[in-house]
């Protein structure tokens, strides 16, 4: 261990001597060159260089919308925008790209060429609006257009104030002849189970007959009675009972 330390110290001394010699040599050479070279002639004044800028507003649009591209140049004789072509040295223009676009303006003049770029980002339209809006289905139209028919207590004939609903239903159904449907006969909670099922059957038949009389083909119509088995409303009030005394028209898939 003591031997190796002595050897390292001897090597360090040798390196220091060599470095001092090298530095001295470099300094002597430099002093000699400066004294020998003459000064260069001044350069001629350069022609003015063109300037250019370009911007787009807004810088983000949805597909189908347009944006305004504006640019300014000076000292340029030849101005063009990639994808647009030669343009006036300064100006603006509406653009309606389908995709995001980088507009690259090149202004050339005697003083040189100047580039400028701007980028317009085009976003896809919202998903819902992407396809053209679908037309409502027959079932939707049926649900929106067809009205239920309401009955008097213990009656199955069509009330005079329900004739308008019958006519409106018939008109819709005659315009949509491919729709098949079911008329459900319902009764309020009063009275007896069996009698109400028979009464509900008569109500469904009444609605069917009235629609057939108004031109609806009878083989499009099924009838079913629910009596008081499937009420729309569960309270024991006249308004609730009225809700339950109805011919309910149901789209048949």
């Amino acid at each position: 261990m003591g031997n190796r330390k002595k050897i390292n110290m001897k090597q360090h001394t040798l390196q220091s001597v060599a470095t001092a010699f090298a530095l001295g040599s470099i300094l002597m050479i430099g002093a000699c060159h400066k004294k020998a070279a003459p000064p260069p002639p001044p350069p001629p004044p350069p022609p003015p260089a063109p300037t250019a800028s370009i911007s787009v507003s807004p810088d983000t649009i949805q597909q189908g919308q347009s944006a305004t591209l504006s640019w300014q140049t000076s000292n340029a004789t030849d101005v063009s925008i990639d994808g647009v072509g030669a343009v006036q040295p300064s100006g603006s223009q509406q653009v309606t790209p389908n995709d995001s676009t980088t507009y690259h303006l090149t202004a050339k003049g005697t003083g040189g060429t100047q580039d400028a770029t701007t980028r317009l980002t085009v976003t896809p339209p919202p998903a819902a609006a992407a396809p053209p809006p679908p037309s409502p289905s027959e079932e939707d139209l049926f649900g929106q257009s067809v009205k239920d028919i309401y009955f008097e207590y213990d009656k199955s004939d069509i009330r005079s104030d329900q004739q308008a609903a019958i006519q409106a239903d018939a008109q819709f159904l005659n315009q949509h002849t491919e729709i098949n449907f079911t008329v459900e006969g319902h009764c309020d909670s009063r009275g007896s189970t069996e009698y109400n099922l028979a009464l509900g059957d008569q109500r469904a038949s009444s609605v069917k007959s009235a629609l057939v009389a108004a031109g609806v083909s009878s083989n499009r119509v099924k009838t079913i009675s629910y009596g008081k088995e499937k009420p729309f409303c569960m309270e024991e009030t006249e308004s609730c009972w009225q809700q339950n005394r109805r011919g309910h028209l149901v789209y048949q898939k």
Partner: protein
Amino acid sequence: MSFAVCFNFLKRMYVNRKPTPVSAALALHLASVCLLPLFSTLFLSTVSALAQDWVRTGSGLGVERVRLAVPDFKPANADPLNTALLKTFNDTFWNDLDNSGVVDLVSKSFYPLQAPGNPTEVTFGVWNSPPPNAAMLAFGNLAVTGGKVVAQGWLYDVKNTASPSVLGKQYADLPTEDSARIMAHKFADEIILRLGGGIPGIAESKIFFVSDRSGHKEIWMMDYDGSNQRQLTHQGSISLSPRISPDGARLAFSSLTKSGWDILMYSTELNRLVSFPHFGGTNLSPSWSPDGARLAFSSSRGGHSAIFVCDSSGGNLHPMTTGRGPDVSPAWNRKTGAQIAFVSGSIGLPQVYTMEADGTNQQRMTDQGYAVSPNWSPNGQFLTLAWIRKYGPGEPGSSDIYLMDIASKQWVQLTHDGGRNDFPSWSPDGRHIVFQSSRSGKEEIWEMLADGTKLHQLTFTGRNSQPNWSWK
């Protein structure tokens, strides 16, 4: 004259029992409970004062019921199973006799401490004189022995000490609660047969009904006393109007199927549906003829709801009514099979009509209100029905169970306790009526004697409706 009419009314009701001579006191009693509602037009001045009186056509009116003492059956050995089986037997036996309507059970508080378990233990003097003062004594013993439960029962006429034995029976079966219950039913029926004018008891009869406790309205059945309730159908839609055939083998009902309301047929022997024709239209409320050969029901297959009749196989279908209004709920005369009662809304609110079984001679039976659900008494002389007599705006009349004499159209009201009461069905012995009532807050099945007494509830779980009593 009016007394005589009323008395005849009662006499027809309990035709198998001989009324005793009418004493002056009894006549007054009859007048107060029977005459006023039946002949209110003749007694207008008194009606206003007494119109609220409840009607009692009572099976106890005109005859005295037998005083029967029923001490608990005793264990015949020390088997540990005896206690539970004896409790089931004694409770069932007492309940059967108490509900029978043919005996007066002597209160147990009057019984001597030592009850007999067999004939040698009977001490006549303590039973046939006050406080029990019984005319009859039913007693016996029960024990599990040799892997079976054995019950021995006797009926003694304790006033006739020389020859007291009226009846002695022995039953043996597997030692289960069901066996104990069935033995009690059988022995009770034997006693009722002898003390009730020769009419068989009903303790082994069944009641079919609609229950929603599975989540759908399905057909269920139970013993006549409400025990042993079990589900029969699993249609998963809406099943209604169960009607058991006279022989008990088939159950007709109406059910909502894929094609609409159909009459379906369930075999109680095969425990499954058996085939029955699909008629088309809305088919409701089947009813069996008493010979089991034909079915009447309501069908709109012809366009409007009308009463149709077909063979029990579904063949030979033909209409009975013209179907001007909803015609529904036919009920065959259970005695003769010659007439059918039904409900029609042809003139407005539903009314009960009768017609000959060939559709002729239609007679309107109810004069006002909302009358539905007719059911014929086993003797063919009475209808029970659900009736809202006062009906219309400002008259929220309740739906109650009524009894009507076919020949005279005289009626009496049997229920008074509120709620909607509907679908009465007569027991095979004619002494009881089962019906649905909402008096407890929801639709449940209740039973009463045909005079409106002994009212008690049979179902408590879910909503239960449209009970139909077996024919035997």
